[in-house]
């Protein structure tokens, strides 16, 4: 919650209006802005922990079925998934993780335009990821019937349990894709706040938290990519 009607919110030394980030005061229940920022980051780290635990369910299911059907798993991965598409998506996500860090760096250096530019690049990368995922993977797979479990209708299965591999593929990548979509929204929200001047050297907590969230989305993909595409 930000407020510009503050006790120290009057004009600065040279008589100009203060930017919102300069006039920032912490919430009424906080003793100082430092504690508030620290708590926000702690909360975000806890949330990231829950995200990892959420995906750990998929990783456990993956481990169980890969142990049960190792050869089928290998064949299905080679046959249904193209490592080139996965690699391209890995590259854009790594790039976007870099640019989101640069956006935070720009906030620390009080370069508003660079915050916006870096966040825009991040969002374009996220969009590229989703377009590739849906356009080059999901839609062809739906058309060919390479679908999970009981919906599997593909004419040329590679083994008895292709549909289980595809189940794990679909539920884990779709849940990850949903997180990318949420990422696009929160990065857009950060861009909106940046445009209004809410981020500066002394106050950029929510930008940092958006960055942390985006990193976890990338890291989960860094694990999904080799497990699914490079078996």
């Amino acid at each position, binding site marked *: *919650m930000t407020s510009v009607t503050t006790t120290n919110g009057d004009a600065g030394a040279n008589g100009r209006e203060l930017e919102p980030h300069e006039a920032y005061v912490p*919430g*009424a*229940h*906080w*003793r100082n802005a430092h*504690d508030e920022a*620290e*708590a*926000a980051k*702690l*909360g975000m780290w*806890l*949330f990231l*922990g*829950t*995200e990892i*635990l*959420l*995906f*750990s*369910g*998929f990783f*456990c*299911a993956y481990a*169980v*079925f890969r142990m*049960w*059907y190792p050869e089928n798993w290998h064949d299905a991965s080679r046959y249904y998934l193209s490592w080139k598409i996965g690699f391209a998506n890995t590259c854009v996500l790594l790039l976007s993780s870099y640019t989101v860090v640069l956006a935070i760096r720009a906030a620390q250096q009080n370069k508003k335009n660079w915050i916006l530019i870096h966040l825009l690049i991040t969002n374009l990368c996220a969009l590229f990821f989703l377009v590739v995922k849906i356009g080059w993977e999901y839609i062809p797979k739906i058309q060919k019937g390479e*679908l*999970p*479990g*009981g*919906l599997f209708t593909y004419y040329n299965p590679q083994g*008895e*349990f292709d*549909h*289980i591999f595809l*189940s*794990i593929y*679909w*539920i884990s990548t779709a*849940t990850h894709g949903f997180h990318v979509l949420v990422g696009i929204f929160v990065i857009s929200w950060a861009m909106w706040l940046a445009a209004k001047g809410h981020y500066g050297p002394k106050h950029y907590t929510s930008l940092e938290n958006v960055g942390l969230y985006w990193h976890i989305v990338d890291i989960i993909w860094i694990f999904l990519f080799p497990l699914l595409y490079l078996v």
Partner: protein
Amino acid sequence: MSHHDVSYLEPKGSFWQTVWSWVYTIDHKKIGVMYLTAVLLAFLLGGLFALAVRAELFTPYQTIVTETGETITKGEALRFIADRWVENGSTLTVNNVYNRFFTAHGAIMVFLFIIPAVPAALGNFFLPIMLGAKDVAFPRLNLMSWYIYVFGSLLAVYSLVNGGVETGWTFYTPYSTTTNWGSTTAMLLSAFILGFSSIFTGMNFIATVHKLRVPGMGWFDMPLFVWAIYATAIIQVLATPVLGITLLMLVFERTFQIGIFDPALGGDPVLYQHFFWFYSHPAVYIMILPGFGIASELLAVHCHKKIFGYRAIAFSSIAIAAISFIVWAHHMFTAQSVALNAIFSALTFLVAIPTAIKVFNWIATMYKASISINTPMMYAMYFLFCFTIGGLTGPPLATLASDIHLHDTYFVVAHFHYVMMGGTVLAFIGGLHHWWPKMFGKMYWEPGAQLAGILVFVGFNVTFFTQFFLGTRGMPRRYATYIEELTTLHQISTIGSWILALGLFLHLFVFIHSLAAGKPAPKNPWGGLTFEWETESPPVEHNFPHEPVIVHGPYDYESVVPPHCDPAEYPVARPPAGGANGTNGTNGTNGTHHA
């Protein structure tokens, strides 16, 4: 600054402005009160289903053909509902209705009542106050988790109205994936959504404990209720996401047939049980740890004595939280290898150690104390009695040989009701009486509350102690029928449930009477030493007129006269140094601040 002196319950302008001030509030006290109302409603709803289940079991289901060829059907208490619930053109059997009723009872009591009851209602209200804070760390997130809870609860109610669920609250596959009866998917999504509410509350409390303690309050100056809620919050954050993904996979299984729990497609139903219990066993401690916290407060305050073994109680909460994550497979002793069983059996016995540490410390606290006999203290003793029975019936279930016999019988039902109801719910009711004057600024009718408490205690034990005998005689859980030999025991249990219900309704009456006609509560009716007793009853808008200063530990009864109390009534009886229980980490009255 005038709002610093106004009670948080004070109406804001017109009626609709007041309503709006509640609906849109970010005040942890109002959110706590809203949670309290909601969980009590859920308790009522779940309790009605429990009464229906007990009513059905009053007689065995049996059909007798008389000499004249007339069919007399007994024990079909739910028949009138079965005849009215028509689905797919056919009438449901009594068994179907019975399944839906015990599932409704279990799911409502677990997800809507007992998990949020203590943390989200009492914890929300008192955790910040006990730390000397103005609010929780993230007040808007707190409001959001309240509305997520409301939405999830409405979805659960929708699922019940729209046909109900037959799987039991554990949603075991393959029954939960193959049956098209009822609205299982809605119930699964409801539990998934309620999980988010729980996670956000847990995150909020962890950040609050870490970052909003009043300056000078070290970790070992915190009240034990805060320690318990903190340990609970850790489990909420670490375990609930796993339940979330499990239920989501079950939803995918039902909607997209992903097959990972379906043996026909190469999946494994037992995998579901591992996933489910990896959350739900720690969740058992989400349910009981806050009860431990309340018990510590009740015993210390109403015995007017320093709690025995403060650090041992605090660390045993954390130990229980840690052990809770490595015992889940004891729910599957009949479905896995002998080696795994032996390991999980041994790990399960570990839980008994920190739990027993707590019980012995509580009893030691009562030793040679000047005990006030009132409703909260009586509930603390009911809690100790019932929880100890619940705890001691755990080892027979952790023992492999006896578990094979007792697995899925009424012995298990009685055991977890002694822990959940005899532990958490009794502590919750005791805590509610303890903090009621502070929350609403009104005293309650003490004789009425004590009578209700006796009814609850007697009714509870009659209902559930009987079920230990039923279980050892082989009565399986989740059956609408039984052999005639067990009729007497079942009838005693059902009569107990009526006594229990009578007691609970009397409690409800006492609370309503208190709100309508209770005497104004003093600031510190019990002589407590924690921060909530320093502020007004009910607390002012930002909890304290001035930020409180920590000058003594939470239980330094031997050296401090409680705030707002008559010093003549609280002679500092014991010398501060070299007392009988020199186990406390808090320093004395010198007001030294340690970070």
